[in-house]
């Protein structure tokens, strides 16, 4: 039935025009698409009027300072705007790190609790998820902030423990170690001694770890290589540090007028932001953890029960390590969301990078430059988070028997 030859009764076939060929049409289509895209881009660039585009204004001093800075003392007169932007990036990163830690801990706990055989606990975990997941993060943050401001006594009636720990609606202030600037400079040979000692401790820890891994392999008994290595290093670092004279001073906070000075200050803005980000993200992480655990075959739990593991062992040795493979990619997404959501700091006037960029825009009118700076910064932080999480992911998914 297959037609192999063209019947001679038909007129000879016209040659196929090239634009009927799929490859040619694809190229034509792509060409047209490219021209259209280029036209749009040219139009946008033209509309944006890029003649004055440039980042030179970042070199000027900003003329204002932000409270509660870290790393350097920014004064707004001698330092440039760019330095202030770096300070603001560091403020954002601090929020992110703390929020990521809290969100992960709370999220895993709640996610596991949602699958608990304890009915009440499971229901309460569900309540937590439904409440925090379905409320806007912005509203949560301003609500936390309102609660912190209203519920905690003002600084006139500060809650004071031993003239060292303070709690008021200006925040929490606690003593904090500050490195001694006279000791910490490259000219001091003791610094290099300490660095050398640290390197030696690191080498020793590595050697111990390797030995313990080998023994673990030979005997089949646990010898906790990582715990030993880490503890050894930490103890060695601490002992040598104290032996060299512990060149830090403890800064005690003091109250001057309506402000704290010195010490470690956790402002209510920071606390509200971290509380909001942690609770909101934890509700999503809890759902991710639950889905990851539920995706495991039930035989894993049953087998763990059958060999007599306790509930805690079952969870930490059997269930979670396996569930992590599915959990980590989704949790990475949540960390990226924390990165972007930290921009909500503006709502409580916490000087994060977005807020400071907004102030610069306000002062200079350079909207496009500031937007480019914002998007590049967030993308770089996202890339950093993704890179770290990829390393972790590779470890937990390949380090298996």
């Amino acid at each position, binding site marked *: 039935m297959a037609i192999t030859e063209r019947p001679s009764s038909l007129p000879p076939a016209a040659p196929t025009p090239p634009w009927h060929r799929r490859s040619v049409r694809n190229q034509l289509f792509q060409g047209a698409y490219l021209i259209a895209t280029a036209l749009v881009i040219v139009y946008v660039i033209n509309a944006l009027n890029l003649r004055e585009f440039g980042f030179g204004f970042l070199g000027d001093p900003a003329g204002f300072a932000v409270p509660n800075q870290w790393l350097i003392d920014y004064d707004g007169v001698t330092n440039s705007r760019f330095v202030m932007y770096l300070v603001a990036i560091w403020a954002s990163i601090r929020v992110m790190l703390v929020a990521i830690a809290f969100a992960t801990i709370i999220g895993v706990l709640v996610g596991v609790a949602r699958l608990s055989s304890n009915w009440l606990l499971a229901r309460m975990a569900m309540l937590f998820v439904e409440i925090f997941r379905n409320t806007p993060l912005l509203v949560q943050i301003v609500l936390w902030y309102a609660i912190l401001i209203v519920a905690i006594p003002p600084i006139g009636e500060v809650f004071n423990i031993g003239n060292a720990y303070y709690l008021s609606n200006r925040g929490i202030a606690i003593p904090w170690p500050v490195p001694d600037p006279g000791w910490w400079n490259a000219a001091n040979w003791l610094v290099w001694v300490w660095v050398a000692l640290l390197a030696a401790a690191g080498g020793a820890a590595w050697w111990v770890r390797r030995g313990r891994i080998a023994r673990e392999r030979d005997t089949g008994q646990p010898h906790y290589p990582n715990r030993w290595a880490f503890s050894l290093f930490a103890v060695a670092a601490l002992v040598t540090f104290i032996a060299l004279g512990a060149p830090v001073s403890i800064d005690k906070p003091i109250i001057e007028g309506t402000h704290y000075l010195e010490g470690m200050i956790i402002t209510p803005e920071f606390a509200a932001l971290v509380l909001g980000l942690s609770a909101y993200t934890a509700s999503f992480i809890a759902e991710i953890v639950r889905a990851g655990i539920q995706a495991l075959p039930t035989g894993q739990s049953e087998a763990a029960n059958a060999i007599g593991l306790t509930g805690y062992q079952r969870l930490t040795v059997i269930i979670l390590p396996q569930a992590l493979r599915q959990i980590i990619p989704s949790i990475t997404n949540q960390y990226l969301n924390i990165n972007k959501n930290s921009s909500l700091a503006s709502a409580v006037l916490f000087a994060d990078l977005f807020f400071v960029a907004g102030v610069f825009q306000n002062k200079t009118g350079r909207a496009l430059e500031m937007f480019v700076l914002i998007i590049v910064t967030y*993308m770089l932080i996202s890339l950093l988070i993704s890179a770290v999480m990829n390393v972790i992911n590779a470890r937990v998914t390949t380090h298996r028997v």
Partner: protein
Amino acid sequence: MAELPQPAEARPPGRVVLPPHRERARRPFADRARDWARHNLFPSRGGTLLTLISFALLVLLLCGVIWYVFFGADWSVVSSNRWLLFAGSFPRDEEWRLWVGVAVVFFMIGVAYGLWSRFNRRDLLFVAIASAFLIFLMAHGGAAAWSSIWFLVALALMFGGYVVAVRIPRDNSRLRVRANRIGIALIALALPIVLLILMVGGGAVSTDFDGFVLNVILAPVGIVGGLVVAIPLAIGRASSLRIISWTCTAYIELVRGAPLLGWLFVALFILDDVIGGSLVVRTMVVLAVFTGAYMAEYIRGGLQALHHGQDEAARAVGLSRRQTLQLIIMPQALRVSIPPLVGQAISIWKDTSLVSVILPMRELKGNADSAIAQTEFIADRIEAYVFVAVIFWIVAFTMSRISQRVERAQGVGER
């Protein structure tokens, strides 16, 4: 054929022995309750401790919430600012337009539930509690009792639509097919219909949208606009044509790289030079563009979840590329991606609250800020924000409930 084995022992006279699980269900309620509690609440010493701690925590929380709601809080900031919070600068004379819009939306929800799902007891309980809350909010203090009448009319329309739609038989009859089409068309047209009701014939203008009304208009625009942007983007990203797939990927990653606040910053300061238009329209464009990038990723996930045999089979039966996409690939990919798409819809609903952070536009949260800026309510920030949170929560929770129902009705997750 061998003889069937006879039962070894005779049944006890007068009583049929059922399988174990049904036997257990037969025992008196008190026994069953005791067993259930022993299993689920007091399995061991540790389990009992956990239950007691959770119980104490729950009681503490409940007591705190009840005390706060009835004694601790001063809700006058909400009751004196009802119109400000919900409609803000929307012209008062045109209030009926809002209510007609609400009635249309409620009617559509009723029809959709009747067509593709059923109200169960929990749904009805939720509707009853939420309605009671809203009616209390509207009626107490003697202000404008007729707005609760409007609300009741909308509720009646919802149940009317439901009762009619639920009677349509669930088979393959022509009536059913037609009803499905009408239902889908209604949902697709809901947004333009409501906007028409609000704006046509001397009604509101776009700058009148304010307070809760602004949230309710921005979110669907973001969702529908996002879908419109997302479908070609997802197809483009999955395309075998390099240039198209690269540019689509670049677009998606660029948009996802910056937070929504950053894009609203663009709408405020930069987009004016590029597309012009009023700020509300620019915000809508930005919301659609932003949501579209995220939705495109979810749809791409749906595309990747399809077996390539689907594509090959469609080509083999002679469908064109466009037909393959339209009839075979997209319907299945969209069905698989319903859960994340609804998640994104809920997310954009919550994100409409960001509009008032940097834009000179006041949605529900922004108007709550205006409310507590009044001198007499300066101490009532918590009350105002709790109220805002509850309103956002009700809508988001309703959306997630409806989505669960849609997933079940569409058999998402089943192949």
